[in-house]
């Protein structure tokens, strides 16, 4: 466990590293602009910002193959973008448009992209954790060597679904990697106030006899290396891994949460350790990145997100009869 906590050495090629940096910048910009759109009342419902946690999604999804699967909870924009969803259908979904990644039926918490093996966006805490085990069961059933990455927050560990799924996944050596995005708060309840044991690997790995590591999830290359090891084990039929990826969310639980339960010092400390700035500095030290490239990425990302907003705003609303579409494969007969 501890040997993984060493200084990040290059776990990737320069191109890959620059790609990851750009992806993190895209997610950050997407979230910040989307929040502004929310404040302009263009977006409704619940909206959970991902800012501050970008390396967890980007570093882990970054080591997957195209035919692997990803499933996550309701804080899902970052994972969808990291999996290759374009900003346009993502932003359009937030605006509830017909061109959205779920055709305006899912919203912020329910992004889906079948083509990219992105299985949602799930908003009942812990409820998707058995689904991930089921995806992995299907992979094993077919004799495939894909894997399924499953993300959830530290609050989800207190749900029964988590323990039921981990037990079966471990027992049957299913190719699933469980990644807790441990941002230390389940909505407003700190880990200290919700978990009898603070070392989550005890609850998620030791308890089920599977490998488990606690790592700095905001160290993107450490995140990538740890996930790659877990993925290799899963592909080799050695079963699941539990990764406690320690991270920090900059914003409240959702947009309506001013996060008064956190100390200002705690937040300031997190800002000083911004994972995107940190990664930019690391890549500069390696001589892989200069200010010019950062400037170029910033401009490109800005343009991409502004285009996604324009696309979303110009896109049509779903037709009203969409209410009755996509309920079932067989024609839906309203019981009215």
């Amino acid at each position: 466990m501890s040997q993984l906590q060493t200084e990040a050495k290059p776990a990737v090629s320069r191109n890959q590293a620059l790609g990851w940096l750009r992806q993190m910048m895209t997610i950050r910009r997407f979230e910040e602009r989307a929040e502004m759109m929310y404040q302009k009342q263009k977006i409704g419902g619940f909206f959970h910002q991902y800012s501050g946690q970008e390396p967890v999604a980007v570093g882990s999804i970054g080591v997957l193959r195209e035919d692997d699967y990803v499933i996550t909870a309701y804080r899902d924009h970052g994972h969808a973008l990291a999996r290759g969803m374009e900003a346009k259908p993502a932003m359009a979904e937030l605006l509830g448009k017909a061109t959205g990644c779920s055709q305006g039926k899912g919203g912020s918490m329910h992004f889906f992209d079948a083509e990219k093996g992105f299985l949602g966006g799930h908003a009942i805490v812990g409820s998707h954790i058995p689904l991930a085990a089921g995806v992995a069961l299907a992979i094993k059933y077919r004799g495939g060597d894909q894997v399924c990455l499953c993300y959830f927050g530290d609050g989800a560990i207190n749900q029964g679904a988590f323990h039921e799924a981990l037990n079966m996944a471990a027992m049957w050596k299913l190719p699933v990697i469980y990644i807790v995005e441990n941002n230390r708060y389940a909505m407003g309840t700190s880990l200290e106030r919700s978990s009898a044991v603070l070392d989550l690997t005890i609850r998620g790995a030791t308890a089920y006899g599977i490998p488990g590591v606690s790592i700095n999830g905001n160290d993107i290359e450490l995140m990538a290396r740890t996930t790659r090891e877990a993925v290799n084990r899963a592909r080799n039929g050695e079963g699941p891994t539990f990764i406690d990826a320690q991270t920090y969310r900059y914003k409240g639980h959702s947009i309506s949460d001013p996060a008064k339960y956190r100390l200002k010092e705690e937040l300031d400390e997190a800002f000083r350790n911004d994972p995107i700035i940190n990664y930019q500095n690391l890549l500069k030290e390696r001589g892989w990145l200069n200010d010019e490239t950062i400037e170029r990425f910033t401009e490109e990302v800005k343009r991409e997100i502004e285009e996604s907003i324009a696309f979303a705003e110009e896109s049509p609303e779903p037709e009203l009869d969409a209410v009755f579409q996509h309920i079932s494969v067989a024609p839906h007969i309203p019981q009215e």
Partner: protein
Amino acid sequence: MPVLAYREALNQAMTEEMERDDRVFLMGEEVAQYDGAYKVSQGMLKKFGERRVIDTPISEEGFAGMGIGAAMVGLRPIVEFMTFSFSLVAIDQIVNNAANVRYMSGGQFAVPIVFRGSSGMAGCLGATHSHRLEAWYAQVPGLTVVLPATPADAKGLLKSAIRSDDPVVFIEHENLYGEKGDVPEGEHLVPIGKADIKRAGDDVTLITYSRSLKTTLAAAEKLAEEGINAEVIDLRTIRPLDIDTLLESVLKTHRAVIIEEDWPYCGIGAGIADRIMQVAFDELDAPIRRVYTRDAPIPYNRSLEASMLPSVGRIIDQVHDVLYKKK
């Protein structure tokens, strides 16, 4: 035509579908080595092996969710609940995930899964093991809810449920597992969403499903002795409801009694009565009456339990009422 017990008919349906399609598998508590708590899956482990007949721990929410995940990526799981009373701890998976994933993803994913198992007031099981949850599930858009009453329908409906591309809640009745009847061999498919007239008549329409069919048919025979010719409709599927068959019958008889083993309030009977009334109020010569399980938790004591269930006597009373016959 071979005579099979209801449980054998279910076994035959699963066996035939698993032989036909490798994507179909069975998982649940005690389905494999124990041969099924109610012996529905008897011999299937031996035939198909542990890849396709999977014993789970007692984790209903967990394995229901696993079935849904497997279905989302193309398998066709049959998930057995030892009884549907236990599906209460998996209801989040069935309602939030199975029923909604297709909708929330804008049609990108399908969930071709069957949740099946026993249900009902099987005798002295007490309040926690005697639930009838069909009305709960039938309320949810995205689910199909099927309750076979005969061995032939059990086979034909289960085969159709397994072939359905949508999540099907397939509710068997514990007291019917030993019931015997003619069951067609091989490709016997009963369409989902089609009610069946189990006894034709033109004086009154008796609408029922699952185990209450037997009681209702017995009541219809008694009524025949006094010259009342009842039509008995077995719903078979309660979502989507075959409203056309019900209306056709009511337009003929102008009277209806709904018989169900479930509680009355917010139940299937209430929903059906409403739907008939919305369309055919002027055709009704009497208010629709209902026979249901009395509105109390289910007691252990045998006589108390029996007193709550729809009975021949209670059905006849309600039929007399809609025919304005004095007792």
